[in-house]
């Protein structure tokens, strides 16, 4: 197995869930919360500890949109492109974010692992459309200009951190 990978976080999460196979989704969620994605190394490890196949864990991880197998940025920006947001021009906002950060449809995360930009279908806040989320914070009635300002602000936060 991977000698260089520290499994102590995984061990703690497994213990929290009593190593129960049927809690695989919760286990993956916690792992993702810690690493901001699902590191490949944990799959064979989980398979052994939970006595289930690696292919099945991979199956769960690829079934749910929320799980990511790629490392994500510190700030995960989710731009809603559900119907309500779409008709209120969510796409130009998405475009602006990508432009500001040098990202595209195929590249979601900046190389410095600071930002990830992705789309979601309806955040359930259609009245505030167009809506975006940055990690757990919601920003309503967005515009491309507000998007640029937000990026500026977030970059400052990073610089001061």
């Amino acid at each position, binding site marked *: 197995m991977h000698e260089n990978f520290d499994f102590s976080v995984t061990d703690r999460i497994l213990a929290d869930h009593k190593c129960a196979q049927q809690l695989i989704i919760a286990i993956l969620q916690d792992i993702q919360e810690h690493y901001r994605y699902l590191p490949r190394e944990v*799959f064979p490890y989980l398979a052994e500890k939970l006595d*289930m*196949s690696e292919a*099945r864990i991979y*199956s769960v991880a690829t079934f749910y949109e929320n799980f990511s*197998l790629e490392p994500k940025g510190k700030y995960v920006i989710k731009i809603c492109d559900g119907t309500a947001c779409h008709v209120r021009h969510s796409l130009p906002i998405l475009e602006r974010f990508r432009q500001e950060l040098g990202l595209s449809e195929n590249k979601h995360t900046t190389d410095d692992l600071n930002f990830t930009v992705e789309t979601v279908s309806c955040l359930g806040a259609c009245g505030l459309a167009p809506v975006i989320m940055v990690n757990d914070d919601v920003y309503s009635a967005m515009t491309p200009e507000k998007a640029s300002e937000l990026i500026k602000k977030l970059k400052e936060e990073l610089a001061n951190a």
Partner: protein
Amino acid sequence: MANKEFITVDGIPVPIEGEANLLEVIRKAGIKLPTFCYHSELSVYGACRMCMVENEWGGLDAACSTPPRAGMKIKTNTERLRRYRRNILELIIANHCNDCTTCKNNLRCKLQDLAMRYNIDGVRFPNTSGNARPKDESSDSISMDPSKCILCGDCVRVCHEVQNVGAIDFAFRGSKMSISTAFGKPLAESPCVGCGQCVAICPTGALVVKNHITPVWKAVDNPELKTTVQIAPAVRVAVGKELGVRDGENVMGKIVAALRLMGFDEVYDTSLSADLTVMEESAEFLERLEKGENLPLITSCCPGWIKYCENKHPELLSNVSSCKSPMQMFAALLKDRAKKNGEKMFHVAIMPCTAKKSEATREEFATDGCPDVDAVITTNGLIRMIKESGIMFDDLEPEAVDMPFGTISGAGVIFGVTGGVTEAVLRRVAATKTRAALLSVANKGQRGMEGIKEFDLEYGEKTLRIAVVSGLANAEKVIKRVKSGEHFDFIEVMACPGGCINGAGQPYIMHEERCERVKGLYEADRLLSVRCSDDNPVISELYENVIGDRAHELLHVHYKKK
């Protein structure tokens, strides 16, 4: 009986007799509903929707996943259902690579069959199979072509539920869904053991057995090569149907004749080397019993099991018998003789098994860098070669195999069925070999198609605990008990349910039809004059003149922890 409960199927009352689902009840009415994803030995998945029936209110139910209830009135063949089934088939075909003529599963394909049954003569949707992932040819045993996969999930459930391997599963969802190993790794890098049970159950050509026929023809045509071939026990009772004889009939003599006609120089019976396995394994067993170490002894003839043990239970490898499989023993003897005589030999093994293809490529089984077995052909492969040669199989006069390995024992023949190895060893270690003694050995509990059979055997002062398992998920159950401290002395493991007769290289038969092949093998055993391996004169001859003190080199192997 007055209190029986009934279902009305197309107007005919059919009794409910404990069936778990409508589909089984409907089968009793003589109606075979179309199915892709239902198999009685697997969990119910209910995804393909081919088995839909119409209930009395005009609603549609999937018969495979609907429990039967008394008084149900269902129809199985209405215009609506036919239209529905055609729609599903068209959608599947639109997502399927339709190169039937070059597909290895041509004429054995359930999709072809149902497309024919439901009069599909055109598809209204554009074909999208080009978007599928590329083929996976990495395994020595099987290949996978996602462009032919209809996502029935049968392979996933077999690999998981019957074999406890879980090499493959669904990945992604919606239109991106596919069958995949973890991270889409090549099968050869997955825990796949090459048992081929997924291939046997796949309704299409998405999973097929690797084909090694071309190099065999080349070798046969090459005048400088001596071609030798060995035929495994289970093959003789399974070529049946496809060649115009009854499934289960022992046609060994015809197979020998066919192989000679094709041009093989020497034809042998793997039952002979199975006798050697019995001799070596019995000796090993008695020695371990005496010393009380490395018990239980676990059999080693099944390469699917060996791979599984290496992957999941490497600490048990010291319990696994050090005997090579009969195939590899025979190959070692033949290649040894060829070397001595300075001959160039190409050795072919005809096997019921797909895992044997991988076994033959293992480095442990190569001499001077050359594999002892040059090519493994499955039973299905043999059938193809016979057809390709234009041989009229049912007209062939049976012939005997070649000397000096001509005499086989019944013990070697029954290796092809679960419990066979155990019975052969019991015959070997039995104190007396009268007819009565052999009959009593036959009834100890090793026979039958159950996945786990256990029994006690009085042996001298001792009582031996013996288990016979087939299907790796069953093996796993017994291994878990061994690990938790339960005592066993001898465990026979075969990866395929029911043993080699149901190997994935054999023509596929339904779960329910397996007993004919079993009967065929036990009958072959009864009709042989030599029933015990140690009574086989060829075996003593071999020990004296060929093997001598080289048993270790020729007949044994040590699988190392990786």
